[in-house]
């Protein structure tokens, strides 16, 4: 088992390295961050000294190499804009994003798993079609449009929920306040998660329901409910584990837009402003972090799979 884990980990490293190279290449195509500083009140000399300070006067591969070496020393660099260490900047915004993503994922799966199972068990009945249609609708609503509708009803019309930030300014920000701010953004993301996964879980459960051992269980005279609860669900866990792993990049992407709309003080907001101002070190930091998270999720999925499914050889 440990050998398998180690092997997977070693396989992930070159992928990670590759991702950082692609990131750097794309970013340097984006143009120099110095372009953003150019103005009537900035002298040539100041620009040149900035370039030297940031190492931008060197060829791209040298810049990349320096970045990589600093990274191995645990230094992600400093933001060009706020001069804050990137690690601090990311660290201080990571919490809200993880909170938002975690809550949305749990909420989404709480909708998707029961709905998918329900739909599979009642296959080809009206109820099944209703659930599947709902899932198509969920995955077809643009997150930003849903956000606008929610803001319209719950903030503007009813005045129940706040539409921006993580807590009301001026108050201490107790748990209840954060929850109230969290409801709308997490609901938007959860609808997306549920939409994609209901059909996936449905077909996974359907596949299991057709297995021989379930037919045997039914033939033995076990009730349909017990068959599903005792045999089918346990085996359906496997595809569900995969689903959780697959969600992470999608969720992160959705979070960027949702955070922007609800001014949620997370990584998405940092990312957007970094992209807008070509803040290289911050963009690289965020890309690296997200790649690590995605690869870690993949690794974890593989390992869980190996743990749950005894037929997988490793």
């Amino acid at each position, binding site marked *: 088992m440990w050998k398998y884990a180690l092997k997977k980990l070693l396989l992930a490293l*070159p*992928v990670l390295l*590759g*991702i950082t190279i*692609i*990131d750097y290449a*794309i*970013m340097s*195509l*984006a*143009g120099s961050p110095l372009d953003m500083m150019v103005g009537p009140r900035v002298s040539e000399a100041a620009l040149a000294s900035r370039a030297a300070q940031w190492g931008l006067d060197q060829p791209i591969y040298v810049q990349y190499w320096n970045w990589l070496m600093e990274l191995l020393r645990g230094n992600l660099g400093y933001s060009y804009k706020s001069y804050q260490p990137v690690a601090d900047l990311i660290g201080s915004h990571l919490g809200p994003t993880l909170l938002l993503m975690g809550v949305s994922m749990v909420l989404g799966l709480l909708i998707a798993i029961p709905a998918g199972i329900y739909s599979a068990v009642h296959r080809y009945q009206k109820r099944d*079609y209703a659930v599947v*249609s709902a899932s*198509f*609708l969920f*995955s*077809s*609503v*643009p*997150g*930003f*449009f849903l956000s*606008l*509708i929610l*803001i*319209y009803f719950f903030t*503007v019309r009813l005045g129940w929920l706040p539409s921006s930030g993580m807590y009301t300014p001026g108050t201490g920000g107790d748990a209840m306040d954060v929850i109230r701010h969290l409801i709308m953004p997490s609901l938007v993301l959860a609808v997306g998660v549920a939409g994609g996964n209901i059909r996936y879980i449905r077909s996974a459960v359907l596949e299991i329901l057709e297995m021989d051992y379930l037919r045997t269980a039914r033939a033995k005279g076990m009730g349909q409910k017990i068959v599903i609860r005792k045999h089918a669900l346990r085996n359906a866990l496997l595809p569900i584990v995969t689903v959780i792993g697959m969600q992470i*990049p*999608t969720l*992160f*992407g*959705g979070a*960027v*837009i949702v955070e*922007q*709309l609800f001014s949620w003080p997370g990584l998405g907001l940092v*990312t*957007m402003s970094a*992209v*807008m101002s*070509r803040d290289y070190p911050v*963009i690289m930091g*965020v*890309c690296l972090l*997200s*790649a690590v998270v*995605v*690869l870690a999720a*993949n690794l974890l999925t593989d390992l869980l799979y190996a743990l749950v499914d005894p037929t997988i050889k490793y």
Partner: protein
Amino acid sequence: MKGQTKLIIRRFSRHKMAVACLAVLAVLILLAVLAPWISPYSPTKPTGKFSQPPSAEHWLGTDKIGRDMLSRILYAMRVSLLVGFLATLISTAIGVILGLVSGYFGGPLDKAIMSFTDMVMSFPYILLVLVAAAIFQPGMESIILILGFVDWPGVTRLVRGNVLSLRETNFVKSDVTAGMPRRYILFSEILPNTVAPVLVYATSVFALSILDEAALSFLGMGVQPPTPSLGNLLNGAESLSVLTGKPWLWVPAGAVIILLVVCINFVGDALRDAFDPRNE
């Protein structure tokens, strides 16, 4: 072949919802194509009436500089559908070629292509798109290219898997034994047999591309005004006065996106069913 097509059509038409959606899509596409001829006003020229609610004269009202919203939506549909279609075309072409090569030739080439695919896939998609959108001058061409060059990994994996299983079939093996040229085997034997799954997958890419174009344009990094797109029409709704007081400026555009995407998804799902030989 003819009998098979008939069979597919029959299986497809069993899905009433999908048939209805196909009809809706056909109407929407027709409206989009005919926009220059049927739209009542110009999509970019002010008519002189500002921020009017819907009336007999302007079915969907006018915006703050007096442009007719119905005309703008018709043109926006045209833009969004075109972006979605071309982006899908590009990404499917890239995906099919890489998948064919990777699956058929195997070896180090396959390894290289697949690890590159993994890299692109484990990248948060929107991050890649955002960074790319920041690089290139935002606009219609760049959004098509960006979405096209980002969406292919799924197709590649699908095609590769298909090729791998087709390679083991007897008809391909006999081709190899008979010494048929590789080009013939790849394009005349393997490719036609992967068309169906690719087509089904492409419908979902099409739906996603429309959603992504809308999201990017909404953020101001996609299609730029005054060219209307379904996403940038919604952009104005970020201001509170539009959101609360002028629903005709943002609700119809959002509704059209949902309608388009839902219909494409339903049609894709029914196609999957219709192409599946196990269904009878």
